[in-house]
């Protein structure tokens, strides 16, 4: 039906003119975020943003609570992936070309040196931040109250982070990369230590099989580079992102971040925000509810009020934007000054001495120097298992959302720190000064060393101390705090020893200048 005022053509012309408006209306279904309602809509109507809640609890936004460590890890991940995809344009994963392409990224690719540096430092920074994030989650008891599984997912993410870092380290095919590959392949083979002691290697050589799967052969070579590259750019990132998705999903499902049971907003909190004025009651005028689904079990909002929550847009987003830029600036400044290392071309005939894994594995390598199996598989496996099981062995549900739970927790942590440091340094000093079994009894059977060595003794002490704390305090939470603190102490000190105090032949040297000249 044609209106005399509007012919078909003129309708078409109108549509054409208003394309901008109609497109943006179809794209931004909620319009500009100028009211509380549209700010809410901006969050949940957006594909990316709706992973976060429309409203965020004030405790979550306190910088001193989370220190932004989880988000920083994510920000570093984004930087690493972004720069990684870019340098993939130039990198070639064949042993003839890998080294030269990395050199050319440094020398001739526009911005290549900076991109590679950012990739390296953001990637390694992730390890630090992920460990710190794990510590924060642990010390605030945020693995409780329904968040147990998310903690386990986090441990899986930790393993992925280490794996991606390690596989990336091997790609330039320089001396560092090649010998790290050899060392890691031998770590993978370390179950052979056990099967040999039991004499079952010829029937069940799990160590040898794993090593062959990893290397694509018996020796590190071009097949290994292909497999490591595949792990680094495809398999591990895929697994990481799947777990990351689950991790974020669970954060929402488990009720967002933890907060203290009796949360009191401070002056600083309320200063710049308008909080909902309504006190008490579940339903306020600014929040509407629609029936989404019928679910069994607890939901986070049951019995809780919407007080102490503020709109995510802009409060959460400004915090995240600030933190992202801070991480970005920090990494770029670091990458501007410090170059990612690149040594000579890989030479299978000339082992590095000392042949060291990347720094985040040097604690493990120190343990390895005592026993290949224990250092490579046994103790790390035990550590991961212990970490994963923590939420199930400590099921106390109180004091969640408070750092160190309470005064007693703070004391326990401090005492564990001091005692752990002293004991570990003592064990190391003993082993460094006096050696171990083989130095005193050259014919001692290997199995004895596997079972009794400085690494096992340290872990044994950790367990004894934890049991002591649990019995003294009557609380599994205190025990957990003690154990985790010991774990951190062990990780830091062993990594330090492996990085700074071990020289050629894994000998002990106070300073690098004391290393015997080669």
């Amino acid at each position, binding site marked *: 039906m044609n209106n005399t005022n509007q012919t078909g053509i003129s309708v078409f012309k109108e549509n054409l003119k208003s394309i901008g408006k109609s497109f943006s209306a179809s794209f931004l279904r909620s319009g500009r975020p100028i009211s509380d309602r549209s700010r809410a809509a901006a969050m949940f109507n957006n594909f990316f943003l709706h992973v976060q809640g429309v409203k965020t609890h004030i405790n979550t936004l306190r910088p001193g609570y989370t220190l932004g460590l989880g988000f920083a890890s994510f920000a570093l991940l984004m930087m690493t992936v972004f720069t990684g995809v870019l340098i993939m344009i130039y990198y070639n994963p064949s042993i003839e070309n890998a080294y*030269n392409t990395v050199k*050319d990224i440094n*020398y001739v690719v526009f911005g290549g040196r900076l991109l590679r540096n950012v990739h390296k430092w953001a990637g390694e920074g992730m390890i630090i931040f992920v460990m710190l994030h794990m510590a924060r989650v642990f010390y605030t008891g945020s693995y409780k109250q329904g968040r147990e599984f998310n903690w386990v997912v986090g441990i899986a993410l930790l393993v992925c982070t280490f794996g991606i870092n390690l596989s990336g380290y091997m790609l330039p095919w320089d001396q560092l990369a090649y010998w790290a590959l050899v060392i890691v392949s031998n770590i993978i083979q370390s179950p052979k230590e056990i099967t040999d002691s039991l004499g079952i290697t010829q029937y069940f050589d799990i160590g040898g099989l794993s090593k062959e799967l990893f290397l694509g052969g018996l020796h590190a070579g071009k097949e290994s580079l292909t497999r490591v590259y595949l792990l680094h750019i495809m398999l591990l990132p895929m697994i990481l992102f799947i777990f990351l998705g689950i991790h974020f999903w669970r954060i929402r499902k488990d009720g967002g971040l933890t907060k203290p049971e009796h949360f009191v907003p401070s002056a600083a909190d309320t200063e710049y925000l308008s909080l909902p004025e309504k006190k008490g009651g579940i339903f306020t005028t600014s929040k509407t509810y629609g029936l989404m689904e019928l679910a069994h079990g607890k939901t986070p909002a049951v019995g809780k009020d919407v007080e102490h929550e*503020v709109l995510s847009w802009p409060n959460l987003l400004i*915090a995240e934007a600030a933190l992202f830029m801070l991480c970005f600036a920090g990494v770029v*400044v670091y990458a*501007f000054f410090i170059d990612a290392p690149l040594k000579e071309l890989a030479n299978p005939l*000339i082992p590095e001495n000392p042949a060291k894994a990347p720094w985040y594995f040097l604690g493990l390598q120190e343990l390895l120097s005592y026993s290949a199996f224990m250092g490579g598989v046994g103790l790390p496996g035990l550590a991961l298992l212990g970490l994963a099981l923590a939420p199930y062995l400590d099921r106390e549900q109180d004091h969640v959302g408070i750092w160190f739970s309470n005064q007693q927790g703070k004391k326990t942590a401090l005492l564990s720190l001091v005692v752990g440091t002293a004991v570990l340094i003592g064990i190391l000093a003993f082993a460094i000064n006096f050696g171990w079994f083989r130095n005193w009894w050259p014919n001692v059977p290997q199995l004895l060393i596997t079972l009794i060595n400085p690494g096992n003794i340290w872990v044994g002490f950790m367990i004894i101390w934890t049991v002591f704390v649990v019995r003294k305090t009557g609380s599994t939470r205190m025990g957990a705090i003690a154990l985790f603190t010991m774990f951190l102490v062990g990780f830091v000190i062993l990594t330090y020893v492996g990085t700074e105090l071990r020289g050629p032949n894994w000998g002990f040297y106070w300073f690098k200048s004391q290393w015997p000249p080669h």
Partner: protein
Amino acid sequence: MRNRFYFWVLFLSTSVLLIFAIFAAYRAFSPEWADYQAEYKKELVKVVKDEAAKSKARSLPIEIQQMYLADLNGIDRCTSCHIGFDNPLMAKSKVPLKEHSGDYLKVHSAEKFGCTVCHYGQGRATNRKEAHGLGHDTHWDFPIIPAKYLQSACAQCHDAAMLQAKGWDQAAKGEKLVNEKGCRGCHKLNNVGGVLGKALEGVGSKPIAYFPMGAVQGEKTTYSWFKQHFIDPRNLVPESEMKISVTDEEADLLTTYVLSLRAGEMPKQYRRLAITDGAKQPADGETLYKRYCIACHGEGKDSIFDETFNHTVPAIRNPAMLRALDDKNLKKIVSDGRMGTQMTSWKATAAGLPERDIEELVVYLAKNRPAGKPAAFSFPISKADPKHGETIFKMRCALCHGKKGEGGLGLNLRNPVVQAFDPEVLAVTVRDGRKDTPMPPFGKDGVNLKDQDIADVASYVKTLAQRK
């Protein structure tokens, strides 16, 4: 929450980020080599004379220069800084703009060889420190080689005899020392020798980590290691039992030699060894004729019109022809060939025959030259009438030699070599013909053209090249 705090963090971080982004961009846009190239342009402008060259110099782009060396699996970017290396105008400039010394580049073109094959260094690098590779933190095993050891590179491609003949004999002198001082008593070379010391196969290209560098004075490079090891082995390797006593100069020669012992071979197209495959003995003329000429010229006694070539192939061992052609002209034809025909140029820089071989060939061909010269042609060519000659040519010659003398059954008379002949030679050929070829005599043995006519034709033939 503390939104103002977060705003501050955001803006400060972004500012820092932008500042460093600008620093990084500045660093990316002003690399070391750009400064050198800018300096080069300025100098060039000063040095050239005319305006056109000056404006050409000004408009030279400033960009990375590299030699892509596929067969050597390398890329050399040295010329990004050493931008004037091939410009004679830069002969007096400062390094790195200075022209490469000597005439090495004439026989070792930079595009084919690059720089690092002789000078070592890290070809891919684009800044001085890493390109020269000196210093432990560059992690480069083969830094720029000191000039006194440069000759160690020659032996990759050239044999000792050739090097000695040219006077680049330091490596050879070093080898002589090795043979005179009994080094093989402890060190294996070419798999023969004692075992007290390390085998020397490929020792010249071993990485720095292969050697104990702790006590090396000065730059910790393999070059220093070798030299100092020759002077005092136990200083570098305390448990060494090496017996050696050499002067400083001898140590340098030994170092040059030892550095020439490189693992891996250069691809064949880079090598110039005196003995190449096949010809071990210098070949004689007949062998050469069979090897290169016989396919087209057959036995060489008869002129053949070749259907495939669509051209007449001259009878180069035909006595009549040889009578007309002297050795000098024969050699010229073989060396330079006949452009526009299938006869190739055989000289060393073209098809590749050394001069000696061409001379042997000519000797062989000339064996068929009959004794005695042809009867002289008496009619003075100066009195010849080319116009009349043209009439005769069209009637008598065009049938075989083509209307414009371009050849067919007969030879191409416009060919510069034919045109270069003296007119008397042409006249004699016309008069006497060429026995055993389709060229009949036109003098008294034939249609009896008078000398005047013959001279006319000869002078006309000489004008053929100018006519279209």
